[in-house]
């Protein structure tokens, strides 16, 4: 067994793991579909073949980890941005119908802006206000989007 080197990048391992787990998920689902017989190709054949391919590639990529291969230094993962951007996208999907365009844009933009460490709370609010106005002008006045400007929550 080779020594585990802390400097060595684990990227290949991670990619291999992602591919393998997706291959297992899709492959095990696709087993239940008809593979087809005779001249007919069933709906299951193409996904099963692809899942096997993906599994093979995932294993091959994962194995590369054990070949000597140094990578450049990794930069820190922006956890704060990951959480805040996903949260604001989720809120947009969940609440835009009830809140309406202007409030949801304000909330989502402000939340997203806070994921940069360089934005202060006040800066985030200013960016959000500007974006609310801009989106109202572009999407509501300009393009006539279906979303109401202010949703039913406001009783308008």
């Amino acid at each position, binding site marked *: 067994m080779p020594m585990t080197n802390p400097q060595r990048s684990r990227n290949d391992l991670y990619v291999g793991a992602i591919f393998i787990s997706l291959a297992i998920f899709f492959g095990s689902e696709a087993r239940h579909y008809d593979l087809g017989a005779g*001249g007919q190709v069933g709906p299951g054949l193409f996904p099963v073949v692809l899942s096997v391919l*993906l599994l093979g590639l995932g294993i091959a990529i994962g194995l590369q980890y054990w070949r000597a291969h140094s990578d450049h230094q990794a930069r820190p993962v922006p956890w704060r*941005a990951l959480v805040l951007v996903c949260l604001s996208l989720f809120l947009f999907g969940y609440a835009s119908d009830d809140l309406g365009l202007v409030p949801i844009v304000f909330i989502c*933009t402000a939340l997203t802006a806070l994921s940069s460490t360089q934005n202060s709370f006040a800066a985030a609010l200013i960016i959000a206000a500007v974006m609310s106005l801009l989106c109202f002008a572009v*999407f509501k006045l300009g393009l006539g*989007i279906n979303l109401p400007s202010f949703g039913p929550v406001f009783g308008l």
Partner: protein
Amino acid sequence: MDLLSNLALGFETAFSPVNIIWCFVGVLLGTLVGVLPGIGPTATIAMLLPITFTFSPVTALIMLSGIYYGAQYGGSTTAILINLPGESSSAVTAVDGYQMARRGRAGQALATAALGSFFAGSVATLLLAMAAPPLASVAIRFGSPEYFALIVVGLLVSISLAHGSMLKALGMIVLGLVLATVGQDAYTGTPRFTLGQLELYGGINFVSIAVGVFGVAEIFRNLEDERGREVGVKHVTHLWLSREEFRRIAAPVMRGTALGSILGILPGGGHVLASFASYAVEKKSSKHPEEFGHGAIEGVAGPESANNAAAQTSFIPLLTLGIPAHPVMALILGAFILQGIVPGPKVISSQPELFWGIVASMWIGNVMLVILNLPLIGVWVKLLSVPYRALFPAIVTFAAIGCYSINNNPFDVYAVIVFGVLGYALIRCGCEPAPLLLGFVLGGLLEEHLRRALIIAHGDPMVFIQNPISAVLLAVGVIILVVAALPSIRGKRDEVFAEDEG
């Protein structure tokens, strides 16, 4: 002459007031996103796709194409002024363009880029107009085995052009193909991978995937390391070239145009390869190779012409075969489909005003771009001082609104979260997002032609080898794969792309 009467029809279509206005909006937006680092034409077109529903097909496609080639112009401005490629293909321009700017010759660099791009764009558009109809008349006789083989070759070529690990690129393509199978099977109606979600019966929305892996994932990537960027040049003067400089750029522009026109047809980011290749050619053929890297005007002229020529000719596979050469073309293919048009060899003959209108609009667009990029350069310089921290919240919000308004369905927005996070994880670990999207878009076509070919052949897989055209194409695919895996070629590839890493 046929070509002339066709072009006359095209210009008639493209010169209608509606089309002129949206062509202008397209190239303006294209320049804008090209100038701003952190948002590219792929994410922009994906976000704007929903609002083009209401347009007529030709107007929608004129605008979306304008965004794409407009971004090639804008990208060079950023590369020259702040040494940051606004678009991946302008990475090479940054090398000598930024050096020129530092020596007070930003005006000449920008003029070279704009004029070279204009020349290349016009010539390549003419090439597109001449090459597409004959190609389409060949392609119209293609059956399912040929199409299947052609798509396989296209996917394999895109791997060999991608930089980074080949295995990972292959994996991303296969992942894209698997994702394309989600939804109701077209032949039997069997729901596949729907997990009981009604929304997934129609398949995963590809705007969600595109915005996720090209928009949101890119933002995470940029927020890893927040540095302020600095605009080195506040005022640009001397926006024209001397006679001597014209003489120096003439040959590089010609060579770049030729190189770019050819490489642009190849799938998988031919325009990026074209600019790298052109830089290498200019450096080799120059009498003063030592100037390269220190502000050689040829190092701006060649690559800029090459990537613009490639941007135009990359429309050829889409308009003649219905096969997109890279993610932006995949989105434009999506626009065709949303308009109820199946792109392919029949479009040229059945909808001539659509095809020739798009071609003609490219000339008009290129003229507009020169005007936008030379006299109005000051506006773009100002724009570069908008900090990224104010920009990315806008991108996320536009993305959310764009995806939501396709079907007024929250599900499409949730899908952006999934693909943003998955895309970020994969990109961070050295995978490229373009092959995934290419696989996703071509997956449906690939499966359809595979199954149709097998049905016609009564389930005999030998049909792909017995059919001469598909046999040759598949053999080419195998050769590409083997050659790309050879160590000596791999070394060369790394060399070509080495300067991109900086």
